[in-house]
C-alpha cells in the first residue's frame, strides 16, 4: 500500500519548514549576540528632537530633558514643566556658539559687499546691546516682539533668552580657542580624522583654524560707509529656524530699527532668505552652501567646522554671531544629573553644538552618552 507517496511529500515539506525555522533562529541569535553589552549603570541616552518640540516632549514625558538653543530652553522652563540643569556657559565659559560663514566664491567676487554686511551686522549687535541695557525703552519692546514673532514664543521667553546669550561678532582669542576645542572634540569622537584634516590641506588643528577663520573682513568694517548708490546687491542669507542666537540678522533686516529702511538696506544689501523659514539645523545649511544656495549664513560653529572638513565645502568663518546661550533643561522631577541615569534626552542632532554640549556634560559627570 503506498500511503508512502503522500508521506514523502509531507516529509519534504516538514524538512523545508524545519530548515527555514533553524535559519531564522540562527540569524536571530547572531543578531542578538551582536547587541553590545549595555552597562546599565551610568549611561545617558540621546534621541533627535527638534528644539521647538522639546518643551512638549518633556511635558508629555517622552523625553526626560532636552538640549537646545535659546529661546527654546527658556520656553521649556517658563512652561513650568522643566528647569535648567546646566547652562552651556557653566560647562564652557564664554564658549563660541554661532558664527557667520561665507562661501569662498562670494568672498572672491564681492569682498566689499561682505564688509558692508558685517558692518550692518555689527551695528545690529550694538543696537541689541543698547536695547537690553534700557529695558524700559521702546527699542527693548520692539526687540522682544521681533524675537517672539520669529521664534513663535511669547515676550517673556524672549526676555529670558536674552539673559543667557551674548551677542557679538568678535573673533576674540577665546572664541578662536573655543573653535579649536570643538575640532579636537570631533577628532576624539572619530567624526573627523587627522587624515581628513591633512587631505583638506591643514597640517594641524591650529593650522586649520588659522586658515579657516578669516578675520580680515571684520577688521575692515570701521571704514565702511553706508551705501550711497541707490542699487541694492542681492545676498542669499542662510539662518537657523527660530534661533535667537542670530538675532543680529533679524534686527538688521528690520525697517523700524533702521528708522525707515533696514540696516542691511542702508549698506546696500538686499538680504534674501536662502531658505524660507530657515534651516532645521547647521548641517543642512552647510549642505546648502555646498550647492551654492547660500552666500552668507549664520549657523552653529561645530557644523561649520565638521562639514567643511568632511565634505570639503568651500566656505570660511568670517565673524562670530554669539557666545553661550544653550542649556540642558530637564523635567521637574529630575533633581540632579544622577537622576538622568538611563533616561532619554532630546537634542537637535549629531554634529550640533548642543550634542557636543550633552556629550561634555555626560563626560563631566562620568557618564556615557549612547543612542536611544
Amino acid at each position, binding site marked *: 500500500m503506498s500511503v508512502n507517496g503522500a508521506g514523502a511529500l509531507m516529509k519534504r515539506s516538514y524538512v523545508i519548514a524545519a530548515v527555514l525555522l533553524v535559519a531564522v533562529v540562527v540569524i536571530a541569535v547572531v543578531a542578538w549576540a551582536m547587541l*553590545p553589552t549595555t552597562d546599565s549603570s551610568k549611561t545617558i541616552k540621546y534621541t*533627535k528632537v527638534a528644539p521647538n518640540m522639546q518643551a512638549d516632549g518633556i511635558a508629555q514625558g517622552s523625553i526626560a530633558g532636552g538640549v537646545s538653543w535659546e529661546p527654546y530652553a527658556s520656553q521649556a522652563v517658563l512652561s513650568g514643566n522643566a528647569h535648567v540643569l546646566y547652562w552651556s556657559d557653566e560647562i564652557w565659559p564664554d564658549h563660541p556658539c554661532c558664527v557667520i560663514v561665507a562661501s569662498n566664491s562670494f568672498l572672491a567676487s564681492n569682498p566689499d559687499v561682505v564688509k558692508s554686511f558685517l558692518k550692518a551686522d555689527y551695528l545690529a549687535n550694538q543696537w541689541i546691546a543698547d536695547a537690553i541695557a534700557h529695558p524700559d525703552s521702546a527699542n527693548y519692546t520692539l526687540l522682544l516682539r521681533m524675537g517672539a514673532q520669529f521664534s513663535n514664543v511669547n515676550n517673556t521667553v524672549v526676555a529670558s533668552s536674552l539673559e543667557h546669550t551674548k551677542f557679538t561678532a568678535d573673533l576674540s582669542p577665546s572664541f578662536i580657542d573655543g573653535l579649536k576645542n570643538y575640532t579636537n572634540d570631533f577628532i576624539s569622537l572619530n567624526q573627523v580624522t587627522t587624515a581628513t584634516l591633512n587631505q583638506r590641506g591643514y597640517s594641524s588643528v591650529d593650522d586649520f583654524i588659522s586658515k579657516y577663520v578669516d578675520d580680515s573682513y571684520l577688521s575692515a568694517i570701521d571704514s565702511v560707509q553706508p551705501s550711497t548708490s541707490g542699487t541694492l546687491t542681492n545676498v542669499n542669507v542662510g539662518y537657523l529656524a527660530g534661533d535667537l542666537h542670530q538675532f543680529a540678522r533679524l534686527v538688521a533686516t528690520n525697517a523700524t530699527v533702521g528708522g525707515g529702511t533696514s540696516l542691511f538696506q542702508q549698506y546696500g544689501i538686499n538680504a534674501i532668505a536662502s531658505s524660507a523659514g530657515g534651516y532645521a539645523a547647521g548641517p543642512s545649511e552647510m549642505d546648502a552652501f555646498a550647492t551654492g544656495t547660500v552666500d552668507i549664513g549664520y549657523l552653529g560653529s561645530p557644523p561649520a567646522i565638521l*562639514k567643511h572638513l568632511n565634505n570639503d565645502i568651500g566656505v570660511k568663518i568670517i565673524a562670530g554671531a554669539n557666545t553661550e546661550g544653550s542649556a540642558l533643561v530637564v523635567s521637574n522631577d529630575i533633581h540632579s544629573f544622577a537622576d538622568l541615569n538611563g533616561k532619554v534626552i532630546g537634542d537637535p542632532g549629531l554634529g550640533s553644538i548642543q550634542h557636543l554640549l550633552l556629550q561634555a556634560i555626560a563626560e563631566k559627570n562620568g557618564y556615557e552618552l549612547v543612542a*536611544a
Partner: protein
Amino acid sequence: MTATQKPDRSDRSFFRITRGQASDYVLYAISLIGFLAVWWIGSIVLNKPYLPSPPEVLDAFIKSFDKEQAKAIGGLTMGPQVFASLQRFLLGFGLALVLAVPLGLAMGYSRIFEGLGKPIVEVLRPIPPIAWVPLFFVAFGVFLGPVMTIFLGAFFPILSNVMFGVKSVDPTLMDAAKTLGASKSKIFTKVVFPYTIPYMMTGVTVGLGIAWMCIVAAEMIGARGGGIGAIINNSSTIGLYNYMFAGMVMIAILGIVTVGISKFIEKRVSIWMGMK
C-alpha cells in the same frame, strides 16, 4: 508509450544545477566585478567626499560594528541597528501576509468582497508608502511607525498577486471538482487555494523588495529609534559618506538575501506542486 515506464524523478531533486545556470553565475560574477571596478575608478577620478571608494566603504562597514569607532555616527553600531530594522521588517511583513492573503482570496473569489474592497484598494495603492511615514511616526510611535509603513508597502503586491491567482484558476478544474461532488466551499479549499499558492509566493517576493525600501526610508525620515536608516541619516549629517555607503551596502545584502530566499522558495514550491 505505455504505462510501463518508470517515472523520471531526477528533476524533482532539491538541489540540481544545470550547465546553463553555471554560466549564468559566471556572468553575474563578471558584472559585479565590473561594477566594483567602475565605482573604484570613479571614486578616485572624481575625488569627491560624497563618493568614497570601495575599500573606504568596506573599512567603514567593518568599523560600524565596533562601539568605539561608531561614536563617529553617534554611537549607533551596525549589529543592533540591523536587528532593529529586521525586527520591524519581520513584524510589518508578517502583518501584511496575514491580512493580504485572506483578503486577496476573498476578493478574488467573491464578487461582493471585490466590489466592496476594490475602490478602497485602488485609492490607497498609488500613494507611496513613504508618504505615510511622517503620519505613522506621530500616530504609532518610533517603533510601530516604520512597521506600518512596511506593512503598507508589502500589502498591495501580495493582495494583487493572490487576487490574480484566484482569478486565474482554470475553470475546467473547478468543473472537474464539481463533477466529483465538491461543494463551493470544498472547491475553494481544495482547488482554488492550492492553485493560488505559487501566485502568493510571487507576491511575497515582490512585496519583500518593496518592504526593504520602505523600512530604510521610514527610518531615515523619522530619524528616531535607530535602524539602518538612522545610520544612513546620521552619516549624512556628519558628512561621513563612507558610513552612509556602508549602511546602503548592508541594506543591499539584506535585500538580496531575503529576496533570494523567497525566490528560491517560490521556485521550489512551484516545482514541488507540479505547476512549473
